[in-house]
């Protein structure tokens, strides 16, 4: 598809317009944190950030979501679902986080069961990606099939080049948006910019310091469920918090429960849940199939590097590096991948 240009001077105007026409979700600064929040205009949007502390996955799978409310009225039971999804623009998401959304798609738009809450948001949202300008020491998207300037999953991808944003139109949705704002997202000769972007992508891809290679890891794991490795330091030092799962852009597990506001009315909610919590798999009868941190850690990492691949033919990790960065005790998925490779090869 085509490519266009936005002058840096006009980006504020574009954001203001988008905020007026859409529910605009963009990165903001809240104290020390970079988070995705709804913004009312360009003034709140943070354009030069490395990566957000929390991924924008909440746009599609909010941490708390009402699935319906119920009400008993006399003898009848009424179930009311929330109606209407707002037209949304997710602006400024990084390529790794956008790729992560693609790993959600087969889960929520399953063969047998869809998910109206997810798919309505997915359909009504235009994703405007923003290429990375810097590679962090925790980044390893290249190893998971992505890249700092990767267009996969975006409707539009913006890349900052000099005093311009180079705009690549990836999908019909993106096309419709640029056509609607063609005064700002201008048609221009973009040959030079395209070249510059390739240069940038090449330069950035040389800056990764984490060496990770997934080749063959799944195959090794297929035949090695029980490895003494899982009883090693990682499960000893793990404190069993849910940080890695909540900051992870591909973790999608949720819990469902009721929140009562009175005797006969209430909401059913689904909220993020974490496989690192013991109650996650604890059955009412008291049996827990994954009783200790060893099983839980193994399950989490096997899910990323094997189970998600088995089911959906996609790696369950995009290499954003958040869990590496945020883990209180420095459990590092890249180290685990490398170690497993070594261990399984020697097994």
């Amino acid at each position, binding site marked *: 598809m085509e490519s266009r240009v936005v002058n840096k001077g006009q980006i504020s105007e574009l954001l203001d317009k988008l905020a007026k026409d859409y529910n605009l979700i963009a990165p903001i600064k*809240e*104290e*020390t*944190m970079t*988070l995705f929040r709804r913004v009312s205009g360009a003034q709140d949007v943070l354009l030069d950030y490395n990566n957000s*502390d*929390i991924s924008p996955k909440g746009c599609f799978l909010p*941490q*708390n979501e009402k699935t319906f409310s119920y009400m008993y009225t006399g003898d009848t039971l009424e179930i009311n679902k929330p109606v209407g999804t707002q037209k949304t623009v997710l602006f400024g998401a990084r390529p790794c986080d956008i790729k992560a959304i693609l790993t959600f798609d087969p889960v929520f738009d399953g063969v047998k069961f869809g998910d109206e809450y997810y798919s309505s948001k997915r359909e009504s949202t235009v994703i405007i990606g923003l290429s990375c300008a810097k*590679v*962090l*020491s*925790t980044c390893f998207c290249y190893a998971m099939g992505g890249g700092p300037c990767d267009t996969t999953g975006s409707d539009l991808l913006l890349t900052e080049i000099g005093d311009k944003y180079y705009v690549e139109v990836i999908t019909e949705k993106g096309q419709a948006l640029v056509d609607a704002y063609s005064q700002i997202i201008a048609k221009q000769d973009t040959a030079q910019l395209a070249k510059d972007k390739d240069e940038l992508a090449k330069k950035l891809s040389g*800056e990764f*310091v984490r060496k990770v290679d997934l080749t063959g890891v799944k195959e090794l794991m297929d035949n090695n469920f029980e490895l003494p490795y899982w009883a090693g*330091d990682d499960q*000893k*030092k793990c*404190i*069993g*918090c*849910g*940080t890695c*799962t*909540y*900051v992870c852009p591909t973790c999608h597990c949720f*819990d469902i*429960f009721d*929140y009562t506001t009175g005797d006969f009315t209430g909401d059913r*909610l689904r*909220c*993020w*849940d*974490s496989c690192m*919590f*013991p*109650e996650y798999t*604890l059955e009412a009868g008291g049996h827990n199939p994954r009783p200790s941190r060893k099983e839980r850690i193994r399950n989490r990492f096997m899910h990323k590097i094997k189970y998600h691949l088995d089911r959906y033919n996609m790696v369950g990790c995009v290499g954003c590096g958040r869990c*590496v*960065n*945020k883990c*209180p*005790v*420095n*459990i*590092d998925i*890249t*180290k685990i991948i490398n170690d497993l490779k070594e261990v399984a090869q020697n097994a």
Partner: protein
Amino acid sequence: MMNLAQQLREQAKKLLEEKKVDLVIGFGQGTELARNTPVFIDSPEGVSALTWGPFCANNLAKYLVDYKNDPGSTAVVVKGCDARSVNRLLDDNQILREKVVVIGLPCPGQLEWQKVSAEIKPGSTLKEVVDNGDSYTVKTDSGDYTFNKKDYLLHRCLVCENPNPVISDITIGKEIPVKNYEERFAEVQDLEKLAADEKNEYWNKQFARCLRCYACRNVCSVCTCKVCAFDQMQPMWVSKRTNLSENTAFHITRAFHVAGRCVDCGECDRVCPMDIPLRKLNVKIHKDLGELFNSPTPGTEPGLISPLGGFSPGDPEEFM
């Protein structure tokens, strides 16, 4: 500092060789230059993994509880603040004195790794860290970097009370004089001065961010309940829903549950992925405990009875 690490390895090796302990819990190099990670060493050959420096923020005393039912003894590497945890765990009867060997290291302050990491060229290898008193020089293969303690230490280290371990069986390194870069209660006092509405606004903003990942609770060395009320499903006291109401309930309960036992190791504050200033809650309690009961930071001395865990006729009675 490398010299200290070498001494530490020798001591650990001796303990394991002489079978005085089955396990040494210490710090090892992490996956980032400026980061260390807990290591669990059960053989004399493994001690080479041990290290020591200004990137050893974790409070390892926490792990002693995991090994309290093991037949053998466990050695643990502690800094001054972590040593308070050991005292507190002993007072709570969580661990047995005879089954714990405390390896204490006087600590000249721990650096905030993210801040340091942001300035060092990615992919560099650490060569040495030199303590210059008010700053550290981190020597790497990509050059030397100097970090002023005042700007790069964890906040808890700026107001450190016990750089020297308050309990220790084997002490490695020279005693370090107490040096505070800030007034201990300054942050709390600033908040106290605000009007109720302003306080409310400040804390609402903080609590609203909470993800309820429970890192603050799980990392806490004095949070030792087997099943936490926040995890209990029957009955479910607090909902998993993250909203201001539930989050506030969680944070007030967490802070108050460790009141009188919190040793101010600052781990909750450090591990919060959302940068919620949790220490400001705990330190407020410390301040009040000091004012009302003249009580020092828990764990400072062995056998200290928590003012909230005991009764004396002389206790202040604000509620009568």
